[in-house]
């Protein structure tokens, strides 16, 4: 890798040993992928995937203490993934003890984030790219982000450029102010390796389609045909919400960092089929394929007939339009079933900025009246312990299903369970 004079000076220790190690880490990271140079981070804000103060992650906090002691802080403000805890979410006495033990470093870690350059005290969401969350990169900007669902959204829907960086590495890019140029930062790395032909009889479930695509193409870039038939050719609020959930499933069931949707996402609109590599294989997704994917999901509940004790919606965090739509859907579902409140404790999660805006609307009171709890936490963080693992929790999120014992149901099934069936 060829470094500029300034970059070489940093590597040689001009700003101390710790900064030199930060740059060395980035250089080795780039060299693993054949990067020939560093490029400046050009976005206004960064984003870190590490938002949780789990006691066992002491090595991470110790590393961050080293950075802070050396004055190696982020050159750009950044947002972070959601906080792990919210006392408004139903939990048992024992769970509360476990949470206290597990997240014993939360306060300390949040102090570290503030010192490292967190945007503000409420900049905690996995969907930082939502307008109300305030970290919306522009097309073509170079990012140093981590959080698989945010990276794939920024690349695909916003046309920004970011590799699937890991936690810690993303912060080091923001500290150095430059990142190695490879992969999704290059024109060639953004070419489509796969063609996905969607031939379903209706708009496919975003979560199932994303899961199918992720499992098939893994880390490759898919060019998806046939979705514009259902989503249209404009990046409307509903299309963006769909793509958010589709991308999160692609990224968690595979490791997709970028997808192109024909006639819809910015690079697909501008470059069309010229984005597709020669001889790209074709994956056809029809109703039967989605059914096959769905039937392949394991469920690790001990009692498969257990009555759900909790329902989580919003992994990744829900958009403002999703919160409004779901308020109406829950109201209508309850009315049709002759019920007043949801029959299963249900939590919707969204970004603090989105919740603030939602609370200014009449929908907020209406949602509260249905019994649904609105929170800003990370459902995965709630689920990550043996007690929660034993709980029969249901979700429409493929990401949450992948990383926890939560059981997946389609949105229609979830709606029926929480408003009508109660089991």
């Amino acid at each position, binding site marked *: 890798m060829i470094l500029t004079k300034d970059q070489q000076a940093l590597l040689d220790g001009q700003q101390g040993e710790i900064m030199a190690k930060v740059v060395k880490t980035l250089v080795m990271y780039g060299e693993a992928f054949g990067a020939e140079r560093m490029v400046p981070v050009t976005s206004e804000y960064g984003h870190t995937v590490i938002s949780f103060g789990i006691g066992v992650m002491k090595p991470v906090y110790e590393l961050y203490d080293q950075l802070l002691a050396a004055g190696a802080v982020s050159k750009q403000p950044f947002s972070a993934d959601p906080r792990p805890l919210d006392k408004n979410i139903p939990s048992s006495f024992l769970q509360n003890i476990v949470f206290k033990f597990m997240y014993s470093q939360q306060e300390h870690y949040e102090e570290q984030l503030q010192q490292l350059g967190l945007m503000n005290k409420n900049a905690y969401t996995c969907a930082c790219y939502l307008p109300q969350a305030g970290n919306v990169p522009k097309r073509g900007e170079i990012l140093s982000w981590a959080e698989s669902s945010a990276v794939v959204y920024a690349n695909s829907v916003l046309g920004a450029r970011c590799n699937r960086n890991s936690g810690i590495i993303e912060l080091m890019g923001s500290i150095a102010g430059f990142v190695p140029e490879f992969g999704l930062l290059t024109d060639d790395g953004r070419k489509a390796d796969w063609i996905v032909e969607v031939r379903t009889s209706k708009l496919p479930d975003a979560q199932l389609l994303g899961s199918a695509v992720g499992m098939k193409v893994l880390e490759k870039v898919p060019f998806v045909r046939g979705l514009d038939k259902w989503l249209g050719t404009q990046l409307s609020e509903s299309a963006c919400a769909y793509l958010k959930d589709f991308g999160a499933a692609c*990224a968690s069931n*595979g*490791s997709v960092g970028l997808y192109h949707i024909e006639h819809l996402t910015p690079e697909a609109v501008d470059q069309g089929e010229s984005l597709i590599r020669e001889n790209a294989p074709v994956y056809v997704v029809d109703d039967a394929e989605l059914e096959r994917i769905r039937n392949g999901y394991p469920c690790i509940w001990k009692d498969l007939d257990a009555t759900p004790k909790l329902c989580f919606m919003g992994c990744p965090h829900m958009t403002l339009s999703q919160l409004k739509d779901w308020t109406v859907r829950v109201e209508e579902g309850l009315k049709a079933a002759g019920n007043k409140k949801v029959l299963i404790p249900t939590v919707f999660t969204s970004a603090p900025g989105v919740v603030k805006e939602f609370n200014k609307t009449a929908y907020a009171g209406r949602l509260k009246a249905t019994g649904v709890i609105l929170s800003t936490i990370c459902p995965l963080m709630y689920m990550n*312990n043996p007690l929660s693992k034993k709980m029969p929790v249901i979700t429409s999120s493929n990401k949450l299903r992948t990383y926890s014992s939560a059981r997946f149901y389609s949105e229609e099934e979830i709606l029926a369970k929480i408003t009508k069936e109660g089991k």
Partner: protein
Amino acid sequence: MSRVFKGRVITPGAAKAPALVSHGGLNTLASYQMALMFGDKQVKCGDQNNPDLYKKPMIGKALCLPETIGSTTGGMVLYTACAMGKQPACMLFSKPIDSLAASGAILAANWTDASMPVVDSLGEEFLNYVQDGMMINLAEDGTVTVEDAE
């Protein structure tokens, strides 16, 4: 009987350990999170979607895999496993390494004292050949010798 494969060194080192093979991508967060959080000494794989590894001990094994997948906490999780001394003996990738695994390996190499040599690009044939329990000898130059189980 033994077979030799040659890969590219990502982080250097030598290792000798029994193989643990995943034919699908290793979801690092899903595999490690519960084991690290709750002090599982054997570091049993917690990824219910990975039938090759689910519930099998990973510590000290020569982890043979195509790539890692899933959450971008992956590199941080590997780094943490290394810092806690709960890493595999080595990681052997059939494909070119992915960004999350590379991050974890490089963070561990630069910021911990742990040894977890990592080699990639060993080829599809490597993953077709190697099986759980076969003894792996990894040399510093990225040469991997797979000894058949007796």
